[in-house]
Structures are given as C-alpha cells and as structure tokens.
C-alpha cells in the first residue's frame, strides 16, 4: 500500500543523506576520495607518521619530519661573500646563565663569570651590513630610497611592533593593553653598541627571548640599522648623500657602510701578545 511506498522512499532518502555525511567525529575531516593522497608515506611537514591509513607504527610515532640541523651547520646563503660571512657563526658567545634564563639549546656558552654582552659585544662588534641606498631622478629631483631600511621595516612590523611599538617607544599594543610590561624606549638605549643590539635580538636579553630561530643574522643586522634610525633621525643622512647621480644617470644603487671597524682597545691587544 501507500504506506510501504512512503516508508521505503523515506528510508532510502535517509540512508543517502547519512552516506553523504556519515562523519560526526570532530577530528575527522570527512570522506575523502583518495585518503592515501592526504596521508601518504611521503614526508610532509606536521604529519604524524605513526599512523598511516589506519595502521599504527609505534617506531615512527611522534617522530618529527622537521629536524634540527646538525651542530655547527651553516645555512646556504647564496654566493655573495659579504652575505656568506655574515651568516657564519657569530664570534660572541652568550653569557653562561642564558642556558637557564633563556633556555638556549645547541649554543656554546661563555665561561662562567665572563660577560660577553658587556665586554666583547661593546668593544668589538659593529654592523657588517651595509645600507643599500638608491638614488633616482624623479622630475629633475633626486629621490633617495633606503632599500635596507624599507626591508627592515617589514621585519620590524612582523616581529617587533607588538611589544616595541611602531615608533620604537616601547608602547606596542601589548603594552597598551596591559598584558605585558617592561619594554624600554629605544631612545633611552643610545649607549648600546651595534653588537649589543645584535646580541639582545640574537640571544635575548632580560625578558626578551632569543629570536635566533625566527630571524637570520642578516635580518637581525638590518633591524639593528632600523633601531638606530629611531635613535637618530639623521642616521642614514650621510650615507644617502654619498650616493650621487652623475650626468646622464637616472638611477644609482650603492651599498654604504655606516661605520667602519672599531679601533681595537689597547688592553685587548696587549692581552693577545
């Protein structure tokens, strides 16, 4: 009779709907045409290879596909000699207590009692990254563009602004919301050397953690330039003026060193003898 028909149709419809959405498990992403293409044995980042197609393999469980590079590995960074030398391990070691205060792993530390931040970073280190400056003719006027600082600004916005603030005054959104305290104004830190700024970003300082895993050395040196610009508005003025358009030229790009190598302190030389 009618009843049977209606019932049959209903049951079919329900089973079709169920077939289409038979997933109620939150951790399942639903039906896939070719599940082995989603969880294949090929190495993919962030995939646990302990379980492939429902089969458990305890040997591989929780094995990371992304591994820490071997000790002392130097990243390939092109063939530009200046860039490569910048990517070599930094000569200044972190203070010994950083193992516990900043949890640095895979780093060598200075001897207990030494303070490389105060001694070496201040005396020896200067910014090896030259400012890349472009001079362009625009309507009969020379317009300068500071390529290094422009790139550094992007890094600064992504990595620093939430604490240090857009103007580098220590009033980032995290300060203003009251979630975090104790970020200094860059303008108060005029007495720090380039090496000390690098040290603070690379190994961390005080509450700030090490940013070595996030930023490479060239990026950190460009941020050091950017911080200097907060402290001194005319920081790149002399460098800009040294890039001069000659007759018939529309554009010149030049790499300019802001500071040359520091004079080595006399007592250090005597020590070395």
């Amino acid at each position, binding site marked *: *009779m*009618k*009843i*049977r*028909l*209606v*019932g049959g149709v*209903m049951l*079919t*419809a*329900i089973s*079709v*709907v169920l077939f*289409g*959405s038979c997933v*109620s498990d*939150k*951790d399942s*992403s*639903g*039906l*896939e045409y*070719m599940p082995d*293409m*989603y*969880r294949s044995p090929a190495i993919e*980042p*962030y995939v*646990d290879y302990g379980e492939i197609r429902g089969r458990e393999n305890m040997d591989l469980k*929780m094995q*990371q596909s992304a591994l820490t590079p071997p000790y002392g590995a130097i990243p390939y960074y092109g063939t530009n000699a200046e860039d490569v030398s910048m990517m070599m391990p930094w000569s200044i070691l972190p203070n010994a*207590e950083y*193992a*516990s*205060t*900043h*949890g640095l792993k895979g780093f060598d530390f200075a001897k207990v009692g030494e303070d490389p931040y105060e001694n070496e970073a201040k005396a020896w280190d200067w910014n090896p990254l030259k400012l890349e400056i472009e001079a362009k003719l625009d309507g009969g006027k020379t317009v300068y563009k500071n*390529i290094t600082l422009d*790139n550094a600004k*992007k890094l600064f*916005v*992504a*990595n620093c*602004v*939430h604490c240090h603030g857009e103007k580098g005054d220590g009033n980032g*959104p*995290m300060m203003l*919301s009251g*979630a*975090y*305290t*104790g*970020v200094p*104004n860059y303008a*108060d830190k005029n007495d720090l050397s380039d090496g000390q700024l690098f040290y603070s970003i690379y190994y961390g300082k*005080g*509450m700030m*953690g090490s940013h070595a*895993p*996030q930023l490479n050395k060239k990026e950190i040196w460009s941020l050091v330039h950017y911080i200097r610009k907060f402290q001194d508005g005319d920081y790149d003025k002399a460098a800009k003026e040294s890039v001069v358009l000659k007759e018939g030229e529309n554009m010149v790009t030049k790499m300019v060193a802001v500071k040359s190598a520091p004079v080595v302190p006399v007592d250090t030389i005597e020590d070395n003898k």
Partner: protein
Amino acid sequence: MFRNLSKWCLNAVAATLLLGTLSVNAQDEPKEAAIDGGGLFSSQCATCHNPHKDGTGPKLSGVRSSWEEATGSGDAIIDWVQNWESAVAKYPYAAGVAQKKATKMNKFPNVSKAEVSAILDWVDAQVEPGPVKADGSGGAGGSEEEGGFPWIWVILGVLFIVIIAAVSGVRRQLKIAAGEETSDDSLSYGEEFKKWSWKNLRFVLIGSVVIFISLIVVALQGLGRIGVVENYQPSQPIDFPHSVHAGDQGIDCKYCHNSVTKSRTAGLPTVNVCMNCHKQVAGNDDEQKAKISKIYAAAGWDGEGYTGKTNPIVWNKVHVLPDHVYFNHSQHVVVGGVDCKQCHGDMTKMESTAKVQPISELNKVEGNIVLTRPTLTMGWCIECHAEKEISTGSIDTKGGGYYEEIHRRLLNNDEELYNKYLEDGKVTVKELGGWECSKCHY
C-alpha cells in the same frame, strides 16, 4: 703655630661638613617633592622589575621594608641600587640577594639617593591588582556545535511514518467493522497496492519518475561533499584563542607563523616563540593559568629557569592538501602579495583554534576577492587564479622585477595576445599560466 693650624683644619673640616650637609639638603629637599617616582621607575627599572611580579629581576613591592629588617639600615637598599657590588661587600644580606636571580643587576650610579627613595615610595604605593575576570572574549572555548547532522528531521520523519501507519491501520479496522471489507479478505498489502496502482497508473508513473530523479540529485550532492573540508576544526592540545593574540594584542600573523615568507609551509610556532611573551604572561585566572602551564611543561620552564626537560606539543594539522597538489606559502605571500585573510579568514575574530573557514565566511572579509567554490577545493584555487591580478607592487622591493620581465616578454612576443589579456585592464595569474596543470600537479 701648630695649634693654629690644627684649629684651622678643624674649622675647615667643620665648614666643609656643614656646607656638604647644607648643599645635600639644598639639593634634596626641594627636589623630593618634585621627583616622579613612577616615571623614574618606568624609565630605569621597569625593563626588569615589576612591583608585583617576578621578572628578570624580583618583584619590588615590600622590598624596602625587608631590606630594612634584614640589614637594620634604610640606606642599604639605596647602596644596592646605585652599585650592588659595593652593597654585597658591606651587607651579608645583599650577598644573599645577589644569588636570587641568575641575571646580574645593572648599576645605577647616576640615580641619586632621593630618586631611589622616590622610586621605592612609588612602588610601595602600588596596590596589587586582583585577578582579572575572564570576560568570555578571553578565549574561553565557546565553540558551538554548528552544522551538525539534522537529527530533528530524522525524528520528525519517523514520527510521520508511524502516524500514517497508525491512521491507516485504524481506517482499515474501521472498514472491517463497517462491513465494507472482510477480515478474511486474502488481499495482502502488496496485492492491495498493485490493485491501487493499476487504478491510478498515471500518478504512480509521474511519482516514481520524480522520486527517482530526486534520489539521483541527492546522491550526487552527497558525492560532491566528499573531499570538501569546510568547517573542519580538529581538537587541539591547547585551546588557543587567535582573537586574543592576533586581535587584542596586535601580534602579526608572521611573528608566530614565521616561515610563511621563506618556506612552503606557514609553520607552527615552536614553543620558544610562545615563551617570548609567556615567560612573563602567566595568565590572570585559573583557566588561563591551566592553559599556559601546558606551554611551560612543553618548554621545560619551572617559573625560575629552563630545566631542559622539554616535551613536544602535538598539534593537529587543519589545512591538509592531498599529496598531488603543490602549494607554496612564500610564493603566494611574498611574490603574490596575498594577505593571509584571503584564505584563512579574519583570525583576529576567531575565538578558538584554527578551522577551515567556509567560503561564505571568507567572502565577508573586507578586501577579499569574492569566490564561490568551497574552501580548499581545486575550483576555489583556480577561481582565484582567474581573478587575482599580478601586481608589480610587491615585487618592487625585490629589485628583480620578476613580473615586469614577464610583462615585457609578453609584449615582445605577441603584442596582440598581450592586448587581449589587458582587455579587462589587468593581467591575471591565469593569463600567466596559473591554470596550467603542471603549475600545481607534478
């Protein structure tokens, strides 16, 4: 002669002392009222110290009275601030304090006695803020069950069948009782149905065609949902509120997902990135503290220092692309200049962990290219490739002029084609080969 000399000396010493005290008084007294302890604290001390929280240095509230108790001198702490090493030599208590924290304190010889005193006054005047109550937006896992299976319709359907069956049963019994039909009528349901269908052949035929077609449509729709992962939100070990981090605190996406500009994957932050802030931010209420303690357990942080005993946090991958698709984040973000929100939605309003945002949500985000196909399907990818304009803007900074070169080659090789591309006023990804199979499948 000698008496005079010694007398003169005495006078001179007395005069110097008097002058000294006078000048000290003259310096201190008018200043004392004007010294801004709070301002000095934030410029000199706040980098390491907090009145009520241990940071790089210990908390300072009540520190003056404990020094006075331990050393019996009100000046001991001032000596410490100006030059902690000389204080260690003078007071045994200071030697103990020097061992408290691994990081050595800076010396502040330029901060005067009165200024230190004003700072300590300001610190002692600070009232400890009580625990802040979570206002719900604080990332309490308010993820509602949405888009679940419509069980209500199933129940209604079953009820409907039962009612029809019951009613028709009653009707049949009534007919039997009225003598219209006899109970020993051997016609079964099936035979009765046959009889009825022959009588109403036209309705039955039309009805079965309609039912047949609708079943096919439903089945095809069901098949079309296979492999569509919209709204997929797997459980995560830590209920991470994106709205607090990216929204309230204004942290850039690229700070935590920092490999997005350099690599194929956007990257999950390692625990040390969490600890860059959470070393200090330990949570205001019990719920937050419980969540953040999971980070501490993973980082091996015991509140004072790193113990070295670390544990991985096992996050569940949300956006999974099949193996036969190649997708590169850096190509899209750096070269293409695509904003994160085009594909991931407005995470500053996402109160819980990441999920695959449905296309309806993505289209609501301001500045997004409006698309129609479901998120993370191929239709969605190539629809965007057909819309998205190749901008020269984001390439400028690279200096290479990657796309400028392509524009130039197009113009030189086939000006007619180039002009055809430019008919709609833009060159899209598709027109530069963004629809070629081997761009993503190889």
